[in-house]
């Protein structure tokens, strides 16, 4: 186990950023979001949750696919280059890392999304354990251990020191590159073990930790789909995209063209199943009521996705939607509503 004093972190960041991008939580206008490190960035690794999940690092909110330039009646099409530069994402929590696993299932299965794959290949993830979990967290429900994140490097911030443990080859490489800033400390192992137990103890006390996912699987598809509970649940939904845009696992995108005046830039950007024009086609829309769109989001996360991915839910219990929904709706309320409904409807 390595460690580094908290006050030496700026030097660590500077070192990592030499020759590669470093993406980490930065406070901007009072909000913490992942962003590219610069010398004057206001890095904040204490705040537990970034507003947006760090999924942008691998699947940005918008990215160009190709550029098309028109000269007279001739068109010149240039595809966007894939990620070539290595980068490090620092500070990701266990839930967000599980979010990336979910994205992997989507984008790395055939046909592989080359843009995503290139980023995954070049990205190194330095995870941080969750020092003080919050009441909106429910990662435990999905079998995620916030105390011991799985990544290229796992870290723990304990009493002004960052304990550092490489877990993979990528992690070892990164560790070597910054080795002179780290010190090896056998005693740190015990500290980390203490921290892990403290974290787990808190997690056991969290209000959502005993949430049961019983009945949420592919087998229950039609009963869940046809349940009258949706009709009640969706009503406060304002049809904004907050839940989908802060979510670490939402992966839907739309492809659009932008007229640059001298051509077209084709890009993709996140879409939200909460939007009325989601999956709009020439004939209209598959889901033309907000109830249907609302249902889609939760059915996808809790039923369709696990049914197609060996039981893996596409919710990781990060609790961002719990915090950010303007109408105080969230996936936990959905799960509970079906629980309360008892066996007969659910």
């Amino acid at each position, binding site marked *: 186990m390595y460690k580094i004093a908290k006050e030496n972190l700026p030097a660590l960041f500077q070192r990592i950023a030499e020759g590669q991008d470093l993406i980490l939580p930065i406070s901007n206008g009072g909000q913490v979001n992942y962003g590219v490190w610069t010398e004057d960035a206001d890095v904040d690794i204490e705040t537990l949750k970034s507003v947006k999940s760090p999924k942008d690092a691998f699947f940005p909110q918008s990215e160009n696919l190709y550029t098309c330039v028109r000269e007279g009646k001739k068109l010149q099409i240039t595809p966007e280059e894939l990620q070539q530069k290595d980068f490090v994402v620092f500070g990701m929590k266990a839930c967000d890392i599980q979010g990336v696993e979910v994205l992997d299932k989507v984008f790395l299965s055939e046909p592989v999304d080359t843009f995503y794959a290139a980023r995954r290949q070049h990205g190194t993830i330095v995870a941080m354990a969750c020092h003080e979990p919050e009441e909106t967290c429910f990662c435990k429900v999905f079998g995620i251990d916030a105390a011991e994140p799985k990544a290229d490097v796992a870290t723990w911030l304990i009493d002004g020191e960052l304990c550092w443990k490489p877990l993979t080859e990528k992690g070892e490489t990164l560790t070597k590159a910054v080795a002179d800033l780290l010190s090896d400390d056998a005693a740190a192992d015990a500290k980390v073990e203490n921290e892990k137990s403290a974290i787990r103890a808190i997690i056991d006390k969290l*209000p959502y930790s005993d949430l049961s996912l019983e009945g949420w699987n592919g087998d229950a598809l039609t009963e869940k789909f046809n349940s009258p509970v949706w009709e009640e649940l969706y009503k406060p939904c304002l049809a904004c995209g907050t839940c989908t845009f802060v979510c670490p696992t939402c992966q839907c995108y739309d492809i659009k063209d932008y007229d640059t005046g001298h051509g077209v830039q084709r890009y993709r950007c996140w879409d939200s199943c909460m939007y009325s*024009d989601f999956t709009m086609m020439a004939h209209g829309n598959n889901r033309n009521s907000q109830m249907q769109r609302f249902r889609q989001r939760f059915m996808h996360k809790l039923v369709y996705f696990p049914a197609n991915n060996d039981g893996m839910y596409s919710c990781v219990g990060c609790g961002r939607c719990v915090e950010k929904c303007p109408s105080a709706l969230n996936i936990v309320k959905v799960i509970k509503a079906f629980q309360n409904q008892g066996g007969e409807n659910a």
Partner: protein
Amino acid sequence: MQELIARAKELLANGTVARVLGWKAGDLPYNPEPAYFEKEEDFKDFVYNGFCGANLSKYMIEATKLEGKTLVCLKPCDTYSFNQLIMEHRVDREKAYIIGVGCKGKLDIEKIKKQGIKGIQSISGAEITDDAETLTINTLYGDKTIPYADGMLERCHVCKGKEHKIYDEIIGESKDTKDADRFDEVSRIESMKPEEKFAFFQKELSKCIRCNACRNACPACSCRKCVFDSNKFDSSQKANVDSFEEKMFHIIRAFHVAGRCTDCGECSRVCPQGIPLHLFNRKFIKDIDEFYGEFQAGEDITVKGPLTSFTFEDVEPSVVAERG
């Protein structure tokens, strides 16, 4: 709250209303959600406390299309929005039974958490009946207390007053929680140099994730289809690919609600990135007040809005440059 529940049940029972639009207790101490109550037993979950910040006027657009009357709980500031919706024929007054509910300032959980409070287990002092000046918050990491006012939404610090502008009856007392001038921040920005203004808004707007929560929560943004979702202007946008698009969206949105925005503050309340969106709307309100005389949207439904009226002596647009 008990009086409100009793009255709502009574109106439901005697057939005056077919449903009640209020708030249902959440599963955390601070997340009640807007909800409809149609049966007596539904009321076990009914709640009205300091966290019931949502402006239910917007829900009335759909609710007044339903069979029978809808009882809606409106706070004093929400009634301005309701009036504005009446003016624009978006709600049917005849289908609404308005209970003006008392308000002593609504709470902002984000602001409370920003004060280093996490792992919240329970909160006391947020009940509407409670005259407590402090909030006591029991957390996994110890108990905390903060003054009630320190947990209030920005909009409550510039409260429009405790008067309901439209109602069928009033239940509960309201308090004027104003302790700041709503134009202070706008004036502060106005006095900046252009590059400072630009940097300020660039920084704030760069956080925008285009979730549309501001728009969708806004009672004035009640278009069936927003121009940013339709191809009518070739203006449909789903993401801020370029920083221009953030500006375009927020300026046009503010312009579309200019003269119609009641300054209810929902946009800023719901923004997941804490962007002070009210600064756009208030800029228009401040300009309208200065250029065309004081105007409060939703106050008087017989008065034409400032952008659908004019006087021969209006200031020229050059006033902007002349003001410096």
